[in-house]
C-alpha cells in the first residue's frame, strides 16, 4: 500500500522534486505506469497533470492509498472528489479589513471532477471567480487564472502579504482560501505543501509586510 506524506493537492504544486520527496518512489513509479500513454517520465507526467488536473483523479482510480492522508486520497481515487476547504494555516495578524471577493474555495478543488454538486459549490462559494472566467478551466488552469484575476488583487497579495490577505474578511469569514489562490498564482506552488517542505519563509514573509516573528509556523494536517 502506498503511503504519501501529502494530500492530493500536490498535483497542483509545480515542483517535481516535492512530488518525489512527498509521494515516495513507489507512488511515482505507479504514476508513470498509469500515465505512460501520454508521458514517458516523471517530469512529463507532472507537466501533463499540472496542465490537466482533472486527469489525475481518473488516472489513479482503484489505487490503494494509506498513510496520514488516507481519507483525502480515498475520496480522490474512488470518486474524484477533493474537499474545497483551505489547507494552509496562516499565523495570526490582527486585521479587520474587508475584501469584497467571494472566493471560499481552495485551488485544490480544481482537482475534483466536475459533477453537478461540484459545479454548485464552485458557483456558490466562489461566485467572484465567475466575474473573471466564464467556466472552471480544465486545461492549464494556472495560466488561465493568472490572466483572469484582477491586477489589483494580485498586487494586494504581493504588497501586503498573503498572511494579511488571509486574515481580511469577506462578510464574517476570513479570506484564507483567497490567500492560497494568490500564493498559487504567484509561485505556482501550494502554500501548505511548501509548509510541509519547511519553506515557511516563502509562505509567510511576503515582502516583509506581515512578518510576525513570534508566530509559530506550523502546518496542522486535518
Amino acid at each position, binding site marked *: 500500500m502506498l503511503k504519501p506524506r501529502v494530500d492530493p493537492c500536490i498535483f497542483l504544486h509545480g515542483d517535481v522534486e516535492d512530488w518525489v520527496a512527498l509521494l515516495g518512489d513507489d507512488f511515482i513509479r505507479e504514476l508513470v*505506469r*498509469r500515465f*505512460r*500513454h*501520454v508521458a514517458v517520465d516523471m517530469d512529463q507526467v507532472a507537466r*501533463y497533470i499540472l496542465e*490537466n488536473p*482533472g*486527469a489525475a*483523479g*481518473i*488516472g489513479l*482510480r*482503484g*489505487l490503494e492509498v494509506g498513510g496520514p492522508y488516507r481519507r483525502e486520497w480515498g475520496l480522490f481515487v*474512488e470518486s*474524484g472528489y477533493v474537499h474545497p476547504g483551505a489547507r494552509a494555516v496562516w499565523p495570526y495578524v490582527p486585521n479587520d479589513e474587508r475584501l469584497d471577493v467571494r472566493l471560499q474555495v481552495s485551488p485544490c478543488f480544481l482537482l475534483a*471532477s*466536475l*459533477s*453537478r454538486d461540484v459545479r454548485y459549490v464552485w458557483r456558490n462559494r466562489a461566485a467572484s471567480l465567475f466575474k473573471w472566467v*466564464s*467556466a472552471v*478551466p*480544465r*486545461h492549464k488552469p494556472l495560466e488561465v487564472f493568472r490572466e483572469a484575476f484582477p491586477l489589483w488583487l494580485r498586487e494586494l497579495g504581493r504588497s501586503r502579504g498573503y498572511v494579511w490577505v488571509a486574515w481580511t474578511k469577506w462578510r464574517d469569514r476570513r479570506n484564507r482560501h483567497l490567500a492560497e489562490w494568490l500564493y498559487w498564482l504567484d509561485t505556482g506552488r501550494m502554500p501548505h505543501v511548501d509548509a510541509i517542505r519547511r519553506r515557511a519563509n516563502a509562505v509567510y514573509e511576503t515582502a516583509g509586510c506581515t512578518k510576525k516573528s513570534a508566530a509559530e509556523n506550523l502546518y496542522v494536517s486535518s
Partner: protein
Amino acid sequence: MRWEMPQRGVYLLKEVYMAEPSEASSYCRGRDSFVVVYIVASLEGGLDVVYGRVKPGVLGCPAATFTRRFSRAETKAAVRTLIDFATKVDKVPLFQINPDVIRFAGLCDEYPLICEDPAVVINRLSADAPKVRRQVEIQVKPETSAKSSLWLVEELARILRDKLELDGGFAEVLKRVIEDPDRLRECVSRHGRGYV
C-alpha cells in the same frame, strides 16, 4: 458479459446527459422490460471506463455489462473504441462526452470540440481563416492550405452531423443559412460571441 451493473468506474458521458435510475426503472415493468446495457473498457490496475446511458444507482431494470480488458499501454485505443461506439453506433453527440476522460486518455488532438472551450475553438477557426484566404489569394503551397482548412471542414462537419442527428429540423436552418449567409452574420454580430 455479466447480468449486473458495473461495480465502479469513470463514466464516458457527462453526468447531466445520463438518465436517473428511477426514470429508467419506469420503463422496466412487466414482460416487455428494457435491458440497460453498459459497455466497459477495463484497464489493468483497476480503472474501468464505462459507457452507459443510465447513472449508477438502484435500478429496477435488468442490467447487462459487456467488458473488454485493455493493458495500460492501450489506454488511448480503449477510450477511442468507446467513443466510436457511443458516437457511431449509439449516435451520441460529441458534446455529451466527459472531457476529463478524453484529457486523461490524451485524445484532445483528435476531439478538440470535446476538450476545448467553445471560445478557443472559435478563435482557432478565426485564426485559420485569414491564413486560408491569403494562401488561396497568392495560390502557393496548396497542400498547406488544404491541411489548414481540413481541420475547419472536419470540425464543421462534425458539429453539423451532431446537430442533425439530435434535431432533424436543423436541416431547414442549414438550408436557410446556405441560401442567405449574411443573415447569419447579422445574427452573430447582434448577439455577440457568446452565442456563436
